[in-house]
């Protein structure tokens, strides 16, 4: 392993070291999470170059503000993915380009062998990815659609309602039902806290 020792540290421990200016810790955190972060940005933007800029920006701000992350507030990945999503959606709006297709049909997980994360992280992420795909597949298509438009396009419920030509109230309840089902599906399987 390239970063022997670091790969075994938890995210919070890596972040504490990053806050102290440890570049190796940054490299280890990147190795562990960059592929998922990039995949999310790519899914939103459809353009690898911009997606890479988003990931670079996010990890750069982690480098600068690692101390701002408080482990008691939740999982690092929740925080990371929220930042990636926000910035990717901002980039999408700035570009005003046609967004890419939503992630359908679900594809095979690629083995990110070159990334060298710890085995536990990989298994955990793979199981979560599998569970999320199952949860989405179990949704009625109309519910899945609004959830994806909200999450991957960054549209508000009003924008979704206008796009689909449906009443706002319908979209609100679909969004709620969809997210509720995904939550329950994942929580029953112990995949989210």
């Amino acid at each position: 392993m390239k970063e022997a020792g670091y790969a075994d540290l938890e995210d919070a421990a890596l972040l504490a070291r990053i806050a102290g200016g440890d570049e190796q810790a940054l490299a280890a955190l990147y190795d562990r999470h960059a592929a998922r972060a990039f995949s999310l940005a790519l899914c939103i933007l459809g353009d690898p170059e911009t997606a890479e800029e988003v990931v670079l920006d996010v990890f750069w701000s982690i480098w600068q503000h690692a101390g701002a992350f408080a482990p008691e507030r939740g999982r690092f990945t929740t925080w990371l993915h929220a930042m990636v999503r926000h910035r990717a959606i901002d980039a999408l709006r700035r570009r005003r380009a046609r967004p890419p297709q939503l992630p359908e049909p679900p594809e095979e997980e690629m083995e990110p062998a070159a990334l060298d994360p710890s085995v536990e992280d990989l298994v955990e992420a793979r199981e979560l990815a599998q569970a999320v795909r199952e949860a989405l597949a179990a949704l009625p298509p109309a519910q899945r659609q609004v959830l994806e438009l909200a999450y991957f396009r960054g549209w508000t419920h009003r924008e979704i309602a206008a796009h689909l030509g449906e009443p706002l109230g319908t979209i609100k309840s679909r969004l709620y039902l969809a997210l509720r089902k995904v939550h329950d599906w994942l929580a029953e399987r112990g995949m989210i806290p």
Partner: protein
Amino acid sequence: MDHEILEEELAAYALGALPPEEAAAVAAHLAGCPECRERARRYREAAAALAYAAPLRRPSPRLKARLLARARGAERRRERGLGLGIALIAAVLALILFAPSLGFRFGAPPQVVPLQGAEAAPDAEGYLILEDGQALLVTKGLAVPPEGRVYQVWFADAAGRRVSGGIFRTQPRPYGVYTVTVPLPLTAYARIGVTLEPEGGSPSPTGPQVLRGVLR
């Protein structure tokens, strides 16, 4: 705010699918409601897991090299602000979800007043979130004041009389969140403004205005 309605609102909020004003209103409610805060947290975890629905792809190896080179100072520091509404929402959300002791109370629906940049800071913007006589000011793009100066919040009535809402100093960040002292009765005031003042604040505004908004 009705809890039945809020369940749908919370889900949309967790997904970032509320317009900024509605998101700010939900955030203000969460500040005073631990029960809804816990629900919002659970929805947020579920929403965050949607990231895993994206097919897994690897960035180019060059990206890691660029990151590490930049971290070593090889690339010049390049600060970029967050997006517009998103940054404000994130700021409100971060503060409110994680600062339960802020002291908001559950009661009348919160009021959100958008603020525009004034002559001294045309690119700044913000929101004032008012609830039950307490207020949060969220600012974006407001520069760090010069040494010996602070920002001061003012509430003005129709006759132009002004009362201070407190002072604050911005940090070198894209956005900031501050608590504001709300004069009572608030209905007596028509406008809100933020000016640059000497350290410690002034009895009435003396410096240039950086933000302004209209109270309903």
